């Protein structure tokens, strides 16, 4: 099975692409792959507890690692210690770690 790094840069409050991208993460995980969902830019907005964060929590419960870019959180005033259950803050360096290791890396 493969290692996937899915970078999510879009705001789920303004585009319906986002739930579809989350569904891709879920499907990849259910097929036995290792999946990291990395939120960046406005993609971090649902990391703040809200109506949109339940989807992230459910992905985490499936075993998907859900991370939010520390810089993007700071830019938007979202405290890293108050994120939705299952979501953790992480540096962007982690994406480069995955690129180095040959993870299949997608951007949306």
């Amino acid at each position, binding site marked *: 099975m493969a290692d996937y790094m899915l970078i999510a*840069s*879009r705001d789920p409050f303004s585009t319906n692409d986002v739930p579809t991208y989350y569904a891709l993460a879920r499907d990849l995980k259910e097929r036995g792959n290792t999946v990291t969902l990395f939120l*960046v*830019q*406005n993609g971090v907005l649902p990391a703040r507890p809200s109506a949109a964060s339940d989807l992230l929590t459910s992905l985490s419960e499936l075993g998907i690692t859900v991370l939010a870019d520390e*810089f993007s959180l700071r830019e938007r005033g979202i405290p890293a210690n108050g994120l939705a259950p299952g979501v953790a803050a992480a540096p*962007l*360096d982690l*994406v*480069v770690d995955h*690129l*180095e290791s*040959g*993870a299949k*890396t997608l*951007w949306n």
Partner: protein
Amino acid sequence: MADQKTLTFVLMDAPYENARTTTALRLMHIAAKRGHEINVFAYEGAVYLPFALQKAHPNPVHGKDAEEEDHVLPREWVAEVMAEAERNGGKVDWINCGFCVDERGAHEAIEGVRRGGPPNLVAWVGESDNVLVIPTK
């Protein structure tokens, strides 16, 4: 560098339009700090990222001249990523899509940028340890 990798980034956003540019340059800067070989294939509006004629401007609303405003220029970010890679034993090979350059008249690029086309990208995909495509919306 024992673990040096070759990473290819594909960019298509024009400068000053989307946070994707900032994130792309942040990623490349991290890779540069680690001394990797970085390939960048810039097409469509992204060929203006290393455009040499970008100029800082004043901010009359805040009463600041260009120097005080210290406006960020993408070409300076690109040059810094190139310099950072060299300082750490890596390099940046930046190709601007030639057709995209011609369409936009974006011929004046900073040093270190060369002209190419899709065949270069295809070759890089085969040669790289990983490829990240950062598309526009």
